[in-house]
């Protein structure tokens, strides 16, 4: 059913369609509307047989999800920014214990200085935590990704984080197609884990692991996640078959055929980039876009193929590490060697990314700088 909905509401609906048994969260901007929406769906009975728990912190939010998931029921939480950092210990814990929790990350930067606006710093802080991570470009994709997320997580026994740009998507009203409950039920089977806290078959979860085994534990986790690339692909394909909509998977290409310059980005900024490409290509430029959806596991081979013909790669990235620079651009270097890769740090702390900025940036030639900061106010910098 087509609806005009706020992104957060669309995500809440998607979650409800997945019939989680436990939803728990702690409020943090810009994630709040998602859990408010879920809370209402639970209270109204639209999402039935679901425990909605107001916890006292993000640490508790993910911990409750760890508990309920370990007890064998589908569990969901959502957070942003500082909240993710506050629960970070549990983030690693959930993946280490192979608990297929799904979490929405309403992307927001990390303080100090405190700032509630969007960038991908929070997501990047968890990029090595063993979770699978997907970035939504639109609210439709956010909705679709959440439905796929449970299936991916439960099939691979690996938690999944769906990253949705805070405010830009979470607070934006857009047209979304919400599938019916029957459709989702057909796609996402009832969750019945092999391993859980079961009095009939008592197991201990979360054992201490000594140096004798720890490396193997981590190695296996790595191999499993790399293997999960197949699962992600097939689930995305299955989603397309069932819902007649391309969603999820690894990346989305736009005007890539014959493109000399390929822009790589994650999340909602792809929309604005597309507008810029349309305009520039109309004037004879050969620019394409590669919007990366699946960030973890990092689909290096798939990226390599997609970027094979590009002469220049511009990575528009919404987060960077102080002391080294962009994350994504460095990871792209893993996928493709010997190409000019420019890192464009953009939209940090909610700074607007406008068409004019991007246009200028894409057209810049003979660039000596491998890292650029889009829309940096030189005046302020000089004053400092």
């Amino acid at each position, binding site marked *: 059913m087509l609806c005009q909905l706020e992104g957060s509401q669309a995500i809440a609906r998607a979650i409800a369609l997945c019939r989680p*048994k*436990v939803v*728990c969260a702690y409020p943090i901007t810009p994630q709040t509307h998602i859990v408010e929406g879920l809370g209402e769906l639970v209270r109204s009975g639209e999402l039935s*047989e*679901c*425990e909605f*728990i*107001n*916890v*006292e*912190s993000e*640490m*508790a*939010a993910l*911990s*409750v*999800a*760890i*508990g*309920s*998931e*370990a*007890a*064998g*029921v589908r*569990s969901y939480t959502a957070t942003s920014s500082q909240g993710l950092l506050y629960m970070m*210990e*549990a983030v690693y*814990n959930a993946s280490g*214990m192979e608990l297929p929790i799904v979490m929405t990350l309403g992307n927001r930067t990390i303080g100090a200085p405190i700032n509630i606006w969007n960038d991908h710093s929070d997501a990047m802080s968890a990029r090595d935590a063993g979770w699978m991570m997907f970035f939504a470009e639109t609210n439709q994709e956010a909705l679709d990704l959440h439905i796929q997320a449970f299936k991916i997580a439960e099939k691979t026994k690996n938690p999944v984080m769906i990253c949705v740009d805070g405010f830009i998507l979470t607070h934006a009203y857009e047209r979304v197609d919400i599938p019916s409950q029957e459709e989702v039920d057909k796609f996402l089977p009832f969750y019945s884990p092999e391993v859980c*806290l*079961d*009095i009939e078959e*008592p*197991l*201990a*979860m*979360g*054992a*201490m*692991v*000594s140096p*004798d*085994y720890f490396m193997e534990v981590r190695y296996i986790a790595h191999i499993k996640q790399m293997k999960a690339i197949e699962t992600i692909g097939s689930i995305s394909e299955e989603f397309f078959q069932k819902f007649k909509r391309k969603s999820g998977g690894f990346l989305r290409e736009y005007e890539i055929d014959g493109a000399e310059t390929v822009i790589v980005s994650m999340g909602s900024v792809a929309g604005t980039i597309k507008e810029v490409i349309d305009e520039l290509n109309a004037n004879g430029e050969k620019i394409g876009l590669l919007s990366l959806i699946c960030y973890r596991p990092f689909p290096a081979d798939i990226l390599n193929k997609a970027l094979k013909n590009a002469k220049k790669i511009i990575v528009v990235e919404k987060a960077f590490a102080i002391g080294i620079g962009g994350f994504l651009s460095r990871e792209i270097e893993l996928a493709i060697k010997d190409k000019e890769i420019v890192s464009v740090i953009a939209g940090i702390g909610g700074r607007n990314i406008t068409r004019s900025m991007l246009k200028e940036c894409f057209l810049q030639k003979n660039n000596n700088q491998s890292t650029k900061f889009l829309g940096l106010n030189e005046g302020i910098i000089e004053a400092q």
Partner: protein
Amino acid sequence: MSSLTLGNRIKSENVTIQASRLRPNTISSGHRACQGCGEALAARCAIDAAYEAANGKIILVNATGCLEVFSCATPENAWKIPWIHSLFGNAPAVASGVAAALSNQKRNDIRIIAQGGDGSTYDIGMGCLSGMFERNDDVLYICYDNQAYMNTGVQRSGATLPFTRTATTLPNSKYMGNDPQTGKNVPQIAMAHGIPYVATASIGHIHDLEQKIAKAVQINGARYVHIHVPCPLGWGFEPSKTVKIAKLAIKCGLFPLFEAENGKVTKSTPIDEVIAVDDYLKAQRRFAHLFSKSASPDPLSFLQKIADKNIEKYGLKKGISNE
């Protein structure tokens, strides 16, 4: 024969589960606790009692700490029942999650117990514990109180007694061990949440402990049982003296045994014969500096006052029973 021993070959009433040949042994032999570990003993007593009270339907959530480390390290798991360890500070929340899942599955017959040491309970996990209490989640939380961070090498916690010597409160010319102006009382904090049941127990009184656990397990909502577990390593006494030390703590009044329901003390276990705190303290090296020749008598009288206050507050001379 006696009713004060754990078992009695003649009578079947007033004997402990621990004396039963068919006790559940929820924590199996082969665990890696220190010799004479009070916590290992307390865990078996408490969880066995819970197991019996819940007809074997128990799920355990364990905070990081000695108990977790010695009971479950690959490839050996001592637990006979479903058990999960997540983190140091989140056991109450994980338990809330398990409770939510089971409530969702209409399995309220399965009882959930979260457990941790005083470090996780008093300090790092206090937020999650308070949240679990405040939501009145259907979880029994057991704190095994050995009054310091033993797992990491005996550092001070919020449960450390005044004047205790720990690795981070070494007595010197300026300080007589742990600062007496610090510390908190989690049983009282639990009571302040108005949760249905709060109790203190000790391995020095297994009958009492088992009764309290059995009662706690059967109540719905958030419950808190605080068990005093002497630690031979951290407190400095012979491993064979663990139970004796626990008994002394009860007898001197420094560890009062009581029950509280809905925020009010309803019962306390009387002390037969009150002893001076000195008798308890001097049996432990962590207080040895209080008994040196040059030591001031003030710390001892300070601790005696705490004990006296407990005795008065909880009516330990005769015991309270409002049932």
